[in-house]
C-alpha cells in the first residue's frame, strides 16, 4: 500500500518535469506544427525558388515590399544582425523576403534590395495569381492603398502583415513573431531548432 502511494507521489513529481521538456517558443506557436505552405517563385538572382528546397535548414520568412521605408528594412536589418550573432551556424538559417508588391518588385529590383542586407538572403518574386494563395495559406494580409495625389506623391503603399515565420529543418511551421520582437528571442528559438 505504502509503495503504491510512493509511486503515485513520484509520478506526480515527474509530471511537471515532462511538461518542461517541451520547448516554449517566444512567438505564437503553431500547435501542432504543420508543414509550411508552399512558396514557389523566382529568387532575386533569377533562379527558381521553392520553400521545400530549404529542408535541412531553419528558415525565417517575411512578407514585405521594397518601397516600404520603415518596417521592411528594419526587419531585414534585424535578420542581418541575427545572422551575425549566429556566426558560422548562419549558413544553416535561410532568410526569405517574399514581395507582396509583384508589380513594382521585379526580380531585378529585389536583386538591388535584398543583397544589400545580406547576399545569402532570398528575395522572392511570385506572380500575382500564385501570391494570393500563398498569402491566404500563411494568413498574410497585404492590400494596396492608393493615396490621394494631393496628400502624397508616392502613389500607393501596401498595408501588410508584418509577422516573421519560423520554419524548422523538417519544413514545419513552428511559430510566428509580431513586428518588433527582440532579435535575442528569435535567436534563442533558432538555436533551439539548430541543436
Amino acid at each position, binding site marked *: 500500500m505504502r509503495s503504491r502511494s510512493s509511486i503515485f507521489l513520484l509520478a506526480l513529481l515527474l509530471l511537471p518535469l515532462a511538461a518542461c521538456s517541451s520547448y516554449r517558443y517566444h512567438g505564437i506557436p503553431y500547435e501542432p506544427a504543420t508543414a509550411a505552405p508552399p512558396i514557389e517563385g523566382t529568387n532575386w538572382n533569377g533562379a527558381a525558388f521553392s520553400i521545400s528546397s530549404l529542408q535541412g535548414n531553419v528558415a525565417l520568412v517575411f512578407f514585405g515590399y521594397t518601397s516600404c*521605408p*520603415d518596417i521592411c528594412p528594419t526587419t531585414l536589418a534585424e535578420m542581418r544582425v541575427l545572422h551575425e550573432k549566429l556566426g558560422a551556424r548562419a549558413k544553416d538559417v535561410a532568410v526569405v523576403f517574399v514581395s507582396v508588391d509583384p508589380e513594382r518588385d521585379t526580380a531585378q529590383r529585389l536583386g538591388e534590395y535584398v543583397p544589400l542586407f545580406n547576399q545569402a538572403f532570398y528575395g522572392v518574386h511570385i506572380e500575382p495569381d500564385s501570391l494570393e494563395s500563398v498569402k491566404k495559406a500563411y494568413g498574410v494580409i497585404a492590400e494596396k492603398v492608393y493615396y490621394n495625389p494631393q496628400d502624397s506623391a*508616392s502613389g500607393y503603399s501596401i498595408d501588410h502583415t508584418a509577422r516573421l515565420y519560423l520554419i524548422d529543418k523538417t519544413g514545419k511551421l513552428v511559430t510566428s513573431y509580431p513586428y518588433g520582437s527582440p532579435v535575442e528571442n528569435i535567436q534563442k528559438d533558432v538555436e533551439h531548432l539548430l541543436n
Partner: protein
Amino acid sequence: MRLSVSLCSVAILMVLVLAAGCGAQSASPSVTIEGPYARPSPSEGGNGGAFMTIVNTGGTADRLVSGQSSASNTVELHETTEEGGVMKMRPVPGGFEIPANGRLELKPGGKHVMLIGLTAPLVAGQTIEITLDFEKSGTIKLEVPVRQ
C-alpha cells in the same frame, strides 16, 4: 516724493522679476533634433525613411509641417500604425505636433520622414541633407547619416 521713489523701485523690481521669469521659460518653442538617421534604400526612384527625435524645450508647442532634400524628389511626413498585426502607412499632410517642453520620436513603425522618388540609392555610410520646416521655429538643416 519719498513715496513715489519707492513706488518706482517696486515697479522696476516687478519688471525685473517678470523678465527673469521669461528667461527661465521662453514663450516661444525651441526645437532641436537628436540622432537623425536614414535607412539604406538601393533603388533610384524608390522610397526611403528618415528617423530622429525632435526636442522642444520651449514653453509652447510647435509643428513639423514639411521638408525638402536633395536626396529625393519629394519629402513627406507619414505615419505607420498597427492594426491586428497589419502595418498601415498613411501620409500626414498636417504634420506632427511637438508638445511644449516635450519630445517627439520619429521611428520605424511610427511617425517618420518619407523620402519619395530617391534621386540616387541611399547607401550605408553616406550622409544626406534634409531640411525640415517648423511652423514657428522656421527651418532646420540636418546632416543625416544613412545606416542599417
